[in-house]
């Protein structure tokens, strides 16, 4: 605290501007290295990034993990138990087969791509919308802020799953993948917009922003060069956590019968289809659910550890 007053007093004295710059840049370097330090020393961060790295490899190169085509379903080999050889296809079914005779393991491997892509696209789209609107509202204030905040309130008042159900009713015949991405993005951007707005409002009152304004920098340049880069760090953590929310929401929509359909290889669709065989073959429900939960958990852990690392209040303790 005392250090801050010290710097502020110095800032009033123009002769000492250089000293202040040196002081603050030295501080920001150490803050960044402290963030990295606390990240690599957090076991949760290490474990979750390793799992996500593995998932990424699975999603990009599913062929490395299984030779079986997940959409090739042989009804003669339906509902095989774990670890049996198919008599007809001569292929080994590690996790057995589904009620239609598709290889369960292959479906889980190929389903990773769908889940990660849905989560990724929705995260990028909704975070971008949220950041842009939140930054405009927080930085310019006034009537723009009122309008954007009211629009955010309206969308925030519609719970994610319920709004998605209503919109997906309208998009019944659209492409199953993109309609889910679009829907979740439309109803998912509000929390990042709110967070960005308050973060920008906090950042724009900082002394370094006041000083560049005093030096005559353009308003928009200040926004893009100084305010947004400094305000965005809490958003990154929330974006990671929100990816797990979207991945789970996607499968919940499949379960309700309004999301993706059987034309897509996806964990959510498999979980929805496994309901009917819950008693006779609970594994079909369990395996994709475990995959889904591990993925969601990893994003949650990643976001949480980033959140802890960038928050200086928590780091101090």
């Amino acid at each position, binding site marked *: 605290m005392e250090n801050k007053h010290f710097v502020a007093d110095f800032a009033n004295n123009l002769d000492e501007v250089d000293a202040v710059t040196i002081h603050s840049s030295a501080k920001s370097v150490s803050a960044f290295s402290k963030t990295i330090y606390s990240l690599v020393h957090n076991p949760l961060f290490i474990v979750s990034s390793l799992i996500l790295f593995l998932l990424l490899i699975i999603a990009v190169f599913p062929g490395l993990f299984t030779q079986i085509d997940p959409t090739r379903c042989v009804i003669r080999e339906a509902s095989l138990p774990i670890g049996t050889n198919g008599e007809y296809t001569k292929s080994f079914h590690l996790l057995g087969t589904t009620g239609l005779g598709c290889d369960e393991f292959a479906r889980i491997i190929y389903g990773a791509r769908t889940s990660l892509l849905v989560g990724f696209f929705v995260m990028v789209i909704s975070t971008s919308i949220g950041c842009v609107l939140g930054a405009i509202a927080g930085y310019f204030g006034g009537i723009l802020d009122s309008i954007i905040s009211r629009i955010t309130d309206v969308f925030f*008042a519609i*719970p994610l*799953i319920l709004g998605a159900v209503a919109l997906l009713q309208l998009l019944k015949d659209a492409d199953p993948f993109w309609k889910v991405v679009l829907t979740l993005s439309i109803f998912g951007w509000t929390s990042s917009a709110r967070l960005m707005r308050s973060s920008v409002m906090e950042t724009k009152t900082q002394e370094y922003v006041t000083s560049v304004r005093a030096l005559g920098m353009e308003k928009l340049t200040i926004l893009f060069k100084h305010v947004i880069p400094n305000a965005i760090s809490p958003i990154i953590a929330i974006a990671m956590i929100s990816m797990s929310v979207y991945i789970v929401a996607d499968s919940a929509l499949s379960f309700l019968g309004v999301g993706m359909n059987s034309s897509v290889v996806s964990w959510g669709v498999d*979980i929805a289809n496994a309901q009917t065989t819950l008693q006779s073959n609970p594994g079909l429900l369990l395996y994709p*659910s475990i995959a889904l939960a591990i993925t969601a958990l990893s994003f*949650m852990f990643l976001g*949480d550890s980033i959140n802890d690392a960038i928050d200086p209040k928590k780091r101090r*303790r």
Partner: protein
Amino acid sequence: MVKYILKRCLQALPVLFGATFLVYGLVFLQPGDPIRALCGQHCPNEAGLDIIRARYNLDKPFILQYLLYMKNLLLGDFGTTFSGRSVSDIIATSMPNTIHLGLIAIAFEIILGVGIGIIVGIRRGSFFDSSILVITLILISIPTFVLGFVCQLVFGMNLGIVPPTVGSSTDFEHMYMPALILATGSIASICRLTRNSIQDNSYADHVRTSYAKGLPRYQVTLRHIFRNSMIPVVTYIGADLGALMGGAVLTETIFNIQGIGNQLYAAIQRGEGTTVVSIITLFVIIFVVTNIVVDILYAVLDPRIRYGK
């Protein structure tokens, strides 16, 4: 205080209209003629169709349709389904079950979430604290419907400890497991929030002052840490109601609870736009109204909100 409440209610009006308009638009801007789809091959002539359209206000411009809908809604009439049953009737029969489920779930949230949160908040840094942190993250990331199915299978069917489905009986014995599953994610979030809030507050200046002036530890915890820590938790419980309602659709479907979420699911399956929009509108109204109440509660707990800008 009265001024604050009035201001807050006025602020909520545009949100209420905006959100209901959005949902209404989503369902009623669907392409196709619902009346023609309804009668299929046995359609009457155009004049007959027009009479039916007029009955459902489908002959009027979209904005007027919405305004008429809202007028009826404010008078307590949620419209009728195309099969002739009044939506208000559906809501009246199924809403009590959902409220029952929701109240048990919120009770679990408060007792378990806040309770465990306080304990780990006070004993920060202990093994118990870090294990609770990991467990809560695991619970948050398990999807509600997966947890529902697994518990139904394990506790309901295999072990037979609890009834696997609820059906028409809605006593506590049938309802507690679905409610617990519905609340799981929120319990974990509230637990983390309470813990963090208590930790932040234990470092506050006024807490140090209370220790310095010689207050015993339990008094500092109860009066100065606990009360201030509850403010974000109360707000969270209000904002979380949206997730709870979304989750209720899933939980009620899995456990066959005759609630409003189950009706919504059934309406989705049948493709009944009116019922879907009415139920979602109802959820949105409940959500907005609860949040006004929470905001007022917030102002009661924290005088800064009342007197501030």
